[in-house]
């Protein structure tokens, strides 16, 4: 990459479990809070921004193109355009790499990017049968027509379709995300105990990192309540293996191993990052947090979408020449403990490398010491549209704390994709 995209700073809302602290705030409101705080913190003149790009998976129906709504509501002048990106769980990364592509093609120098998700407020839907009848009712002219349409409604028409469930189900292979994790656990033989141990580690690390994480959090003042939300509420101080072991499998009740405890939490939250060209950063006197030094998105089998990171890391290596040994920190998004463990297994597997990656040597071994060091989505939660941007922010801040050089961020993506991003400190 000849021109580098620099990441100046970032802030996020606390991440809060669905239906808790941030339940009343819609995705656009969460995004606005993050952007507005970031603008205040950096002191950037918002008129200088060339584009606002936000990732969001379940956009609020009343805030279509949520990026534009966030931009206007954050006081960014009207002339600054905005668009929303959607690459499922990697939407937050997509926003950052889109900024890079824009910059590289000479279409802008300063961007506000990020991701936002209110999983609480993903709506319920009426079945299509009801929608048809409502449409007919609206068009009915006479009282008779209206009455007969009203009478045609059946109880089944009002059975809600749960938006969140629909969104988390692969429309092509028909499995929901948890079921894809069960596939990996089954095929690769990843036992329940290992998954639970991994989940416990995520909580332990996130709890220990509270103060560090606080550095990237902008407090949220929910309207009309004299209180403030400053902390992620996912990490559990008293998490233990016994408690995890007691949970019932969710996706395959009889033979399954994937539970609510060893899966990512369903969470509300938003992240905003200020990114720009190196030249602009120098000109405006900003000292960058880090650079985007390479990235790749790759498709894979939707039924085994959890292995996406492996494919993406391989592709990123092909493009950048950077191997796992170069990474001082690695994030593999914790959609499911089984899925992360499956990735680790495949990364170091000769057979996997030969069969699926068409290469002689495996990608390499990942040391737990540098993997998800501040916990992951199992503890912190996974607001799908926002997570990618959070991983970039969290690992850049951690690189700085460790005075280390490079971080590799990767995510599996529903629908069968993987994302890998290489970051670098100046």
């Amino acid at each position, binding site marked *: 990459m000849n021109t580098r995209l620099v990441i100046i700073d970032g802030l996020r809302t606390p991440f809060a479990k669905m239906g808790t602290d941030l339940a009343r705030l819609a995705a656009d409101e969460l995004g606005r809070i993050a952007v507005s705080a970031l603008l205040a913190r950096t002191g950037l003149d918002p008129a200088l921004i060339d584009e606002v790009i936000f990732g969001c998976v379940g956009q609020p129906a009343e805030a279509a193109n949520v990026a534009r709504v966030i931009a206007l509501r*954050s006081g960014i002048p009207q002339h600054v355009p905005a668009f929303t990106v959607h690459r499922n769980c990697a939407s937050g990364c997509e926003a950052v790499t889109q900024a890079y592509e824009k910059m590289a093609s000479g279409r802008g120098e300063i961007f506000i990017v990020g991701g936002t998700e209110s999983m609480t407020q993903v709506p319920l839907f009426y079945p299509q049968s009801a929608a048809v009848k409502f449409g007919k009712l609206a068009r009915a002219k006479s009282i008779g027509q209206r009455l007969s349409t009203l009478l045609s409604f059946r109880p089944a028409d009002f059975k809600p379709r749960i938006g969140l469930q629909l969104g988390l189900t692969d429309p092509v292979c028909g499995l929901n995300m948890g079921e894809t994790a069960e596939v990996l656990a089954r095929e690769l033989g990843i036992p329940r105990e290992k998954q639970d141990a991994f989940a416990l580690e995520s909580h332990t690390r996130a709890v220990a990192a509270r103060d560090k994480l606080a550095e990237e959090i902008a407090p949220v003042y929910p309207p009309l309540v004299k*209180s403030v939300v*400053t902390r992620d509420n996912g990490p559990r101080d008293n998490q233990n293996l016994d408690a995890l072991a007691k949970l019932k499998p969710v996706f395959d009740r009889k033979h399954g191993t994937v539970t609510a405890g060893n899966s990512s939490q369903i969470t509300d939250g938003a992240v905003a990052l200020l990114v720009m060209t190196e030249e602009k950063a120098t000109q405006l006197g900003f000292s960058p947090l880090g650079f985007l030094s390479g990235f790749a998105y790759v498709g894979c089998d939707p039924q085994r979408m959890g292995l996406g990171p492996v494919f993406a890391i391989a592709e990123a290596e092909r493009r950048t020449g950077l191997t796992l040994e170069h990474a001082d920190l690695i994030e593999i998004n914790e959609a499911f403990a089984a899925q992360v463990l499956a990735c680790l297994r495949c990364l170091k597997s000769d057979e996997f490398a030969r069969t699926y990656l068409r290469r002689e040597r495996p990608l390499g071994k990942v040391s737990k010491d540098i993997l998800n060091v501040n916990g992951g989505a199992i503890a912190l939660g996974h607001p799908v549209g926002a997570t990618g941007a959070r991983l970039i922010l969290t690992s850049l801040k951690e690189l700085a704390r460790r005075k280390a050089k490079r971080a590799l961020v990767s995510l599996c993506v529903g629908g069968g994709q993987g994302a890998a991003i290489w970051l670098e400190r100046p």
Partner: protein
Amino acid sequence: MTTPPPASAAASPPGATDPTLPGQSPATTIRRHVTDDQICVLTFDRADSTANVFDRAALMDLNEQIDFVQCHPELRGLVLVSAKKSIFIAGADLTQLARAKSPEELREMIELGQVVFSRIAALNIPTVAAIHGACVGGGYEVCLACDYRLASPEKATKIGLPETQLGILPAWGGCTRLPRLIGFPKALDIILGGKTLAAKPALKAGLIDEIVPREYLTDRACRVILERGLNLRRRPHQLLKSLLNWTPVVRLIAGKVAGPLNAKTRGHYPAIPKALEVISRGLGSSLEASLALEQDAILELGRTDVCRNLIRIFFLQERAKKLTGLPSSENVASLPRIEPVRRMAVIGAGVMGAGIAQWTSSRDISVILRDINDEAIAKGMAGIARLYEQGVKRHALTKLEARAGLDRISPSALEVPLGHTELVIEAAVEKMDLKQQLFARLDRLIGPETILASNTSALSISELAASTRHPERVVGIHFFNPVHRMQLVEVVVGRQTHPGVVRRAVKFVQQIGKLPVVVKDSPGFLVNRILMPYLVEAGYLFEQGARVEDIDESMLEFGMPMGPLRLIDEVGLDVANHVAADLADKFRERMQSPQVLSAMLKEGLLGRKSGKGFYVHGGKGDYAPVNPEIDRYHDGTRLAKLVREDLRNRMVLLMINESARCLEEGLVAEPADVDFGMIMGTGFAPFRGGPLRFADQLGIGHVVDEMMRLAGEGELRYTACNLLQTMAAAGTKFYQS
């Protein structure tokens, strides 16, 4: 109905030498255009002004246009529109009314308006008013004379009859035609309340007949004329309205309304009962008789001091809106334009800071709200959200506007760069050392053009400025509590404040729709300084045996919105005591806090915030009875025998004296500044015109005699200041006219 006289008859007042008479260079006020469909469109477009008003020339002009219409029988209709951006017709020219030298001159002006409007009403073609912008007083009365009224839905459109707020009543047919149009009770609501309504509520109340987008107003007016012709005049028969306008019912309602109205106005606002009388009697009379009643009533009211004082306040408000903050000698036109404030910061999220952040964010300004911790900000933000919610409930804002306002506030408990803010207002705790540290720090965060302001109500601006590297950029911008209700803002000029900074501060105050008064830096500035001896005296009178009820009631009778002891309760005894102590440092016995406050404070009587003070708070609604145990705080009976008039006299004299001192010390430029500040800042009885105006009315000699008599009784704080004494000796007044 009788045929109205032709223009010439109404237009020739005996021996008139008015320079605006037609033929002697009348400024154009109305443009005429006849459409292909033979509809005459009159466009009000006063030359060299952004407003249309009805002065003599405009009325004469309109009269001539009606001559034209009458002479052209082929015309099928008449439409009235305005070419101004935000004003249809802003009513009668108050300057002309106020300057009327004799009752005859005033009567002639009233008659002229009535005659011209009645000629419109009597035309035998349909007439339509197409309203966009402010359409008030005489501006709406001309619409009432039309057959049909359209209005644009825009924010600028405001329709109503605010005359009673100026101590007069609608006398160009408003009191006569409005009740006939919308019914007696609704007309009372508008006229006695002096209300102006936005288009939507105006439609609901029946003040207008249709809401039409501004761009289509004239087209629509022409179309209704062509489609409905004189049928526009035929209103559907409304049984309820006829019943409500039936004389016995009118009498019944009038009787019911009169009692509470008098209790509320305490007889201080004669225009309101007068309007009630004119409307109710007018409904039982012919149109002509009712118009005659209007005329007699306005002449009677126009002679009163109340009316003169109220009109004067209106002018003072207009003056404050145009104030430049520069010496009048300075040529403002040659100075660079001041850009409006777009981004600012408020430091401190307490009641005042939150209030300022809420108000400014609602006025399109992005606000960074800082405090030292998340909890303080959370409290402030909750208060701000509540203010916005109340605004939505009052229909002052839409839900989206309220959300946009809230969105403009960026709260932060951490230090953030302030380089791109044009203004920083500090509203932190009132401690000099703390504020100085804060200012020294802020000084390093702001940009090269940022104004550093303090909302302090007591501390010296010059001293604060001394802690910065840019004392010339430090100024006081002092809001009153509650910020969203109080219109006055004191702009306090420190020793080193640059005139350009004063100018920008004044402009900012105007930008956010508040009214500035420029004051020199001195303890208590203007308003609190004058208020303090009054509050101290109230406490002292109580201490010496006067009853709480008598003290407060005497000032309510005087016309204050709240008695002084109740005000102390509201402010908090601790705060009042603290401010008094601060001011006593400089002003000694004039502001010495009475012992009783300390005694009450010791026992935890803080006023409203602790539930008890001179009154007991926390009951249902706003009702707070006198504290039954309060009498044990009397410290003597020396003044127990004073009647209410004596009590009032003492408290008012001290306010007058302090007002005169402020003027004497040159804190403000002129007497009007003092009166304006006291009326807008404390609610000082508006109809009395302010303390200095009231002193003029009492007679300065009388004021000084009274004060010296009290001083002679050993109460030295009553010694009249030099200015008053000199004026008494020379027989001069604060105001010449």
